[in-house]
């Protein structure tokens, strides 16, 4: 059995630096009537304290599953999740200690479904305060709720409104306020803006960046919008069919995309200015669709959409290789 | 069919002589089977299959000479063997009317046309009981036995077969019997007594008593004689229809409020008498069951052996109060509500119960009703604890004589059945009635009946309410029904013997125009 180079490097990194999260060979399979869905299929990455780690991928690639597993909604099928270097949190949320639950929070993709439609904003924001004993009494809680609302720049008069009465962007603000209510140190953002307008998105992202500085937060930022990723993440990982194709620091990533899939993604982005146009790899035409994770193609799962396909690709799965400092890629092109 | 005759009854109906014993079954059996004797309109026995008979001096041996040449529906001849077989079968199975034949020790075939019954003890009403003994075709039954069955060698004794088929020699024979729907019989073309040409050639018993349905069917001339349980208002309405009349005759049925003599407060005779004085008999016979007559003692007045001189209570609140004051429950009336149980059909029972309730309220007795399906009445009367203070039930004699009612109503062995709620358990009474029944001489027997009736009256175990008039709406316009003309045979079922009824299809057609 070959252990990927990456694995040893990671161990080193753990020993040396302050990682808020270390995900090691995480697998999450779903057993459905159609077959086994390998939603997450052995991925490893780490997130440094205070950084924004971006996770990009097409729909169905398993991004949310990673987030849900980290936050404890799912129990990993295999693999480890280590929080703050020493706390193994690979169990599911029921067994997870409250203290950890308080530390890790999540903001969901769809603001519509992540807020209980029959509860007022106050009820929603109160819950984490109650559960984690953050405020002592009712009065205190209401005060805190109002503070939270102010923090996300929502009018205090929203306290007693129902989610259905406010707009999508505002709902997402409430969701963020709820996530921040427990003073977490690590927040998972699962496509927090994909359902919103660009103008609202801008506001929200700016606010998130501000909070990150203010509360020393680390983010796992999931999106499929590469342009957005470019502006928020310090390191970016590309996911395809449950596997990571490429991990790189964000500037390096956009200047020098290695994996053919990354190149295809980049070339597909619609942009509005010529400078941006210049950054896109030319002459790569996107083709095909992401296949169903039930029957993942053999070999490299990307091979039949790949414009640089080689013979080996259809039979052997490439392993992760570090090409540059901190820039790893999973492609046969780079494993000579 | 040219002359269909249709009547309606409630279910279930059993056409097996060893199983059926209720109204509808009796009616069906009368039409399908022959008996040794046949009752006349006085209830007295006339020769039928039995051509002649004699009884030994000690009253223990009855010798019957059968009529010759009588054919069953399948053409085989009726012989003494069939009689013996039928009796053995009835007694072995033990259901239906079998209880009437407990006195029979054995049956003996003397020759092809002579049969002898040996009794355990002398039994006065022997001939009357024999109206319920139907003669089966032995060969046919034996050919249709299903084995194994609960009766050993005899398998099921032909019970399954006889559920839907007949094995008789009667004037009608079964043609179709879809369960719970109807029983269709056609005339026996070679019946040994010539049948009037106007008698119905098809006889149908329909299984419903729903007033609306009956009403519509009557008005559409799809029903010739309706059941007797139609409520007063329905009768009124039916009578208004052209060509329909209510045929009224004493049914032999009496309506009792059977009072539990073992349960407080009705265990107190004064309490019972107070109730008897307080009840408004006039309203009952005028308004609740109009046309019926107030009962005179425990025996229906139409029955041979009933004593016409027995005392009758009338509503008298003073006397009622006087009796009530003597009762030990007088000061605690509220703590002792009287529960009156009655079956939910017929509907008029409820009127009776509410009248009772209101009458008793006049003297301060609290009454609660318990209206339940018939099955539940049987169930609650089955034990002393569950039985109610009062049960409103009507009872018919099993054979046309006072002794039948007296025995079934008050003898100790009838407690826990629906025929006795009194829980009388009086050994003196038991001896009296047994003695009376063993008396073969009719006159002597009737004197003893009188005494027994008087004895019961003194105990006041029952509110004797009324003797019921059977009220059958019928198509006077196109049928001739002897019972409605007053030619009433006082034995259950016999008044609907098809061969005496005449149907005139042309008159029907006219009415339908």
């Amino acid at each position, binding site marked *: 059995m070959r252990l990927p180079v990456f694995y040893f490097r990671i161990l080193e990194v753990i020993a040396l630096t302050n990682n808020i999260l270390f995900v090691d060979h995480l697998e999450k399979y779903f057993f459905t009537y159609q077959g086994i869905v390998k939603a997450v299929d052995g991925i490893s990455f780490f997130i440094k304290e205070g950084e924004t780690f971006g996770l990009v991928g*097409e*729909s169905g690639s398993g991004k949310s599953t990673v987030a849900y597993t980290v936050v404890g909604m799912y129990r990993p099928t295999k693999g480890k999740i280590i929080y703050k270097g020493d706390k193994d949190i690979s169990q599911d949320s029921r067994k997870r200690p409250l203290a950890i639950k308080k530390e890790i929070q999540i903001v969901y993709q769809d603001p519509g479904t992540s807020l209980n439609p029959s509860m007022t904003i106050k009820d929603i924001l109160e819950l984490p305060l109650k559960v984690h004993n953050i405020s002592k009494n009712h009065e205190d809680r209401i005060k805190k709720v109002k503070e939270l609302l102010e923090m996300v720049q929502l009018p205090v008069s929203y306290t007693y409104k129902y989610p259905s009465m406010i*707009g*999508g*962007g*505002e709902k997402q603000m409430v969701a963020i306020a709820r996530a921040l209510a427990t003073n977490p140190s690590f927040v998972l953002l699962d496509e927090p803006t994909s359902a919103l*307008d*660009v*103008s*609202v*998105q*801008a*506001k929200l*992202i*700016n606010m998130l*960046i501000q909070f990150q500085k203010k509360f020393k937060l680390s983010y796992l930022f999931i999106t*499929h*919008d*590469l*342009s*957005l990723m*470019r*502006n928020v993440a310090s390191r970016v990982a590309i996911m395809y069919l449950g596997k990571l194709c490429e991990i790189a620091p*964000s*500037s390096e990533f*956009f200047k020098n995309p290695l994996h053919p899939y990354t190149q*295809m*993604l*980049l*070339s*597909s*982005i*619609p*942009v*509005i*200015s010529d*400078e*941006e146009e210049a*950054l*896109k790899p030319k002459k790569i*035409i*996107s*083709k*095909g*669709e*992401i296949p169903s994770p039930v029957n993942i193609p053999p070999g490299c799962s990307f091979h039949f959409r790949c414009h640089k396909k080689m013979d080996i690709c259809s039979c052997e799965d490439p392993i992760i290789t570090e090409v540059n400092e901190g820039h790893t890629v999973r492609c046969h092109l780079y494993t000579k | 069919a040219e002359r269909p005759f249709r009547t309606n009854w409630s279910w279930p109906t059993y056409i097996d002589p060893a199983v059926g014993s209720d109204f509808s079954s009796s009616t069906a059996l009368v039409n399908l089977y022959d008996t040794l004797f046949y009752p006349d309109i006085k209830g007295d026995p006339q020769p039928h299959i039995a051509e002649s008979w004699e009884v030994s001096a000690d009253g223990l041996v009855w010798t019957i000479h059968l009529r010759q040449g009588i054919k069953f529906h399948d053409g085989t001849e009726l012989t003494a063997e069939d009689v013996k077989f039928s009796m053995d079968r009835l007694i072995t199975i033990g259901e239906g009317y079998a209880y009437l034949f407990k006195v029979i020790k054995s049956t003996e075939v003397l020759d092809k046309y002579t049969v002898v019954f040996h009794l355990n003890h002398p039994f006065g009403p022997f001939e009357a009981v024999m109206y319920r003994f139907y003669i089966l075709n032995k060969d046919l039954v034996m050919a249709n036995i299903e084995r194994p069955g609960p009766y050993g060698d005899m398998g099921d004794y032909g019970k399954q077969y006889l559920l839907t088929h007949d094995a008789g020699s009667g004037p009608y024979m079964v043609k179709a019997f879809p369960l719970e729907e109807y029983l269709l019989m056609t005339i026996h073309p070679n019946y040994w007594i010539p049948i009037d040409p106007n008698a119905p050639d098809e006889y149908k018993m329909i299984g419903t008593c729903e007033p609306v349905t009956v009403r519509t069917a009557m008005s559409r001339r799809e029903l010739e004689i309706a059941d007797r349980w139609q409520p007063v208002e329905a009768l009124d309405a039916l009578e208004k229809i052209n060509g329909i009349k209510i045929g009224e005759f004493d049914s032999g049925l009496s309506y009792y409020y059977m009072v539990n003599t073992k349960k407080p407060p009705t265990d107190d005779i004064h309490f019972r008498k107070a109730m008897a004085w307080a009840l408004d008999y006039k309203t009952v016979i005028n308004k609740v069951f109009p046309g019926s007559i107030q009962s005179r003692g425990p025996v229906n007045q139409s029955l041979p052996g009933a004593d016409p001189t027995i005392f009758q209570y009338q509503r008298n609140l003073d006397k009622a109060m006087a009796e009530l004051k003597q009762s030990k429950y007088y000061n605690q009336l509220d703590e002792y509500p009287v529960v009156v149980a009655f079956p939910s059909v017929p509907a008029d029972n409820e009127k009776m119960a509410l009248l009772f309730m209101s009458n008793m309220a006049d003297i301060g007795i609290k009454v609660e009703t318990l209206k339940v399906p018939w099955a539940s009445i049987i169930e609650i009367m089955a034990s002393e604890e569950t039985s109610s203070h009062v049960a409103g039930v009507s009872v018919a004699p099993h054979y046309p004589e006072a002794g039948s009612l007296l025995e079934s109503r008050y003898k100790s062995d009838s407690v826990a059945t629906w025929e006795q709620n009194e829980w009388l358990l009086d050994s003196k009474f038991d001896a009296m009635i047994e003695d009376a029944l063993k008396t073969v001489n009719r006159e002597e027997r009737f004197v003893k009946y009188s005494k027994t009736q008087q004895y019961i009256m003194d105990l006041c175990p029952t509110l004797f309410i009324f003797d019921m008039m059977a009220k059958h709406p019928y198509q006077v316009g196109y049928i001739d029904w002897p019972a409605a003309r007053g030619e009433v045979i006082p034995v259950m079922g016999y008044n609907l013997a098809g061969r005496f009824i005449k149907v005139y299809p042309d008159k029907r057609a006219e009415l339908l125009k």
Partner: protein
Amino acid sequence: MTKPLLEIKNLHVWFKVFGGILRVLDGVNFTVMSEEKVGLVGETGCGKTTTMKAIMRLLSMPPAIIPKGEILFKGKDILRMNRAELQQIRKEKISMIFQDPTAALNPVFTIGTQIQDAVRFSGKSGRKMKKDEIKARAMQVLKEVSLPDQERVLHNYPIQLSGGMRQRVCISMALVSASELIIGDEPETSLDVTIKDQILRLLKELVEKHNTSIILISHALGTVKNMTDKVYVMYAGTMVELAKTKDLFAHPLHPYSKGLLAAIPRLTGGGIGEGIDGHIPEYINPPKGCRFHPRCKQVMPMCKDKKPPLFKVSEKHEVACFLFQNFGGDCIDK
């Protein structure tokens, strides 16, 4: 490119709802030349879909009312057409592609049934097509949108196809019944980046091949930039700016357009603009004057009570903002 193909003049659409009347469209003016590719951008809820549905007369009329306005298709007012004429337009002139292909395909019929019906009722009325003719045509359009294995697709239900394939089917249905104008109502938003790219490229190819005009609605400006010649910017039921695509992206004039452009994250990095404060006004009680003024950073007193008309800033660049009233040029509105 002389006569306008479609011309919307001063269109008002209101909705009668519980709380009162939603005055959604407030004097929309909109022109499409033949063979022109027009973009329409704006935030969620600004009335893009409503405008397009009004063109096809797809608004269900009890809640919707059209109190004022004209929609001229080749000079003829669609709003006043009788049923047969309207049917004619729908059958062969204009068609629409919806935002969510899943919702736009009837889930209980096979793709074949739906396309073949679209084919059967398209084209010259009166001429009945034969069965195999219909099928052949259906296969042909499916091929045109580069769907592989058309035979199988015809027998599939929408649920059996992926999102991208469904959208291709929708496009093929639109192709069947539109020879002059295709309206694409955010045909790509619900799709993935790579597929989005494929679909848009396909659409562009087809439009160019068939010489059809297209109206492409989006709130993703990048898409519009690649696809169109001319762009309308819509805000809360009015057109606030119209320009050649290149001009707009180079020099947006209206504060709203500027804000919108600034809010778009760039691939070059460097952070994201601030976005525009506030949100789309409620339509029951929209702000008087310029509907954008409560959110506008450059608001002037006059914006609060007078609705700005479109000012012509240059040839082919008009903007509805009083900041530009002194640029001269004609005033189109009223």
